[in-house]
């Protein structure tokens, strides 16, 4: 019987290796898999390349992973936060690399990676410094830039509910990048608040079909990053 659930957060992140590329779901705190990230900090993998729209907040979740010195490079669209100096401090002292990608291009690159599309053309960034060194091409008289599909060894995601096949549904704007990263991660690991029986999610309502998911772990009451920051929590 197919059953993708694993018993613990430690089991879920166990195989993430030094030097791995890791996509992390979420836009700001919405959809951020805080507990999986903390388990990854405990696990110890280093020299990671992390793909997320942002760089976390406070000193929990993604910001804590960066603060712990585990991240060699960030690929993101908006590495600033109103309540964290973790990334800016490391960036200014040349201790972390940054690949800055427009948000829509980042989303489409991740989707392309998961969809077996190695390259596509987009109008975003044409004529700006973010197109420097990239191939331009004209279609019907308008310029576009060539962008490449993006894949990752692992994707760490948060969803609302899963079944044993790994079918997922999300909560409101916590959906954001996660369905794309599920496709682009070779091993997609998801924390969910609830696990239901097969058929417990209406086949019409599934957002991420289970084929894109390898491991599911239950975290019944996930923390909200903003609450942790307000409470002055730091990790570890």
């Amino acid at each position, binding site marked *: 019987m197919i059953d993708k659930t694993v018993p613990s957060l430690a089991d879920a992140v166990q195989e993430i290796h030094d030097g791995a590329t890791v996509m992390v779901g979420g*836009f*700001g*705190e*919405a*959809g951020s898999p805080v507990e999986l990230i903390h388990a990854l900090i405990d696990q110890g993998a280093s020299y990671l390349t992390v793909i997320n729209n942002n760089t976390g907040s406070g000193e929990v979740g993604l910001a804590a992973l960066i603060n712990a010195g585990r991240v060699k490079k960030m690929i993101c*669209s*908006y*590495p*600033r936060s109103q309540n964290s100096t973790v*990334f*800016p401090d490391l*960036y*200014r002292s040349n201790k972390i690399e*940054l690949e*800055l*990608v*427009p*948000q*829509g*291009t*980042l*989303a*489409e690159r*991740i*989707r392309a990676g998961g969809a077996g599309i190695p390259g596509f053309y*987009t*109008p*975003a*960034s*044409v*004529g*700006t*410094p*973010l197109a420097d060194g990239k191939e331009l091409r004209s279609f019907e008289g308008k310029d576009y830039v060539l962008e490449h599909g993006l894949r990752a060894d692992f994707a760490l995601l948060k969803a609302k509910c899963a079944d044993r096949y790994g079918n997922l549904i*999300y*909560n*409101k*704007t*916590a*959906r*954001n*990048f*996660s*369905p*794309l990263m599920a496709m682009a991660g070779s091993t997609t690991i998801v924390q969910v608040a609830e696990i239901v029986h097969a058929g417990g999610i209406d086949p019409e309502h599934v*957002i991420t079909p289970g084929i894109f998911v390898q491991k599911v772990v239950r975290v019944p009451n996930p923390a*909200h*990053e*903003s*609450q942790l920051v307000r409470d002055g929590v730091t990790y570890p």
Partner: protein
Amino acid sequence: MTSANTGLDREQMAQRVALDIPDGSYVNLGIGIPELIAKYVPEGREFIYHTENGLLGMGPSPEEGQGEPELINAGKRQVTALPGAAYFHHADSFSMIRGGHLDLCVLGALQVAKNGDLANWSTGGPDAIPAVGGAMDLVAGVKQIFVVTQHCTKKGEPKLLDACTFPLTGVGVVSRIYTDLAVIDVTPEGLRVVELSPGLDFAYVQERTGTELLPAATKS
């Protein structure tokens, strides 16, 4: 608050932009003054607000204590969803943007050039943390781009220029600019004043602008 004869305040600027949005428009609002526009839907019109993090049919901020950490806008503030809303993932959201399905996007600006070039993501300074978000996708894809901004920087330097000195967000993308001092169209001839804020004259606005302004077409 600014005094009446030095132009509109932020709320008035937002209100002024809202007047020009046609009924039924699909609209994306940037962070800052653009976010305020949602409060000022003119009587008899319905706008549908898109936030690029995955919601169409975005409603106003929730009542104190009623918000949800996973129902936020692109500025990462808590919002609500109106009846008839839809959630979607980022690739679908930027398909709406890149595919030309949104009617209007209103953005803030660091600089705007007379040809409609926009710079709004980086001052290019050596210590700046570059952060672009969805701005480049929005200006490349949305049918019409409005800018709403203070006419000058806090130091009094003009933001409307012959050419931008900061890194660009997009080339020739802005069609109209709303400032505390005036409403200005980007035209093939350059920036043309459409409307002066109450109590201001053309010379006052021109003095605070880094490119030659054209007077309103009807006044010529």
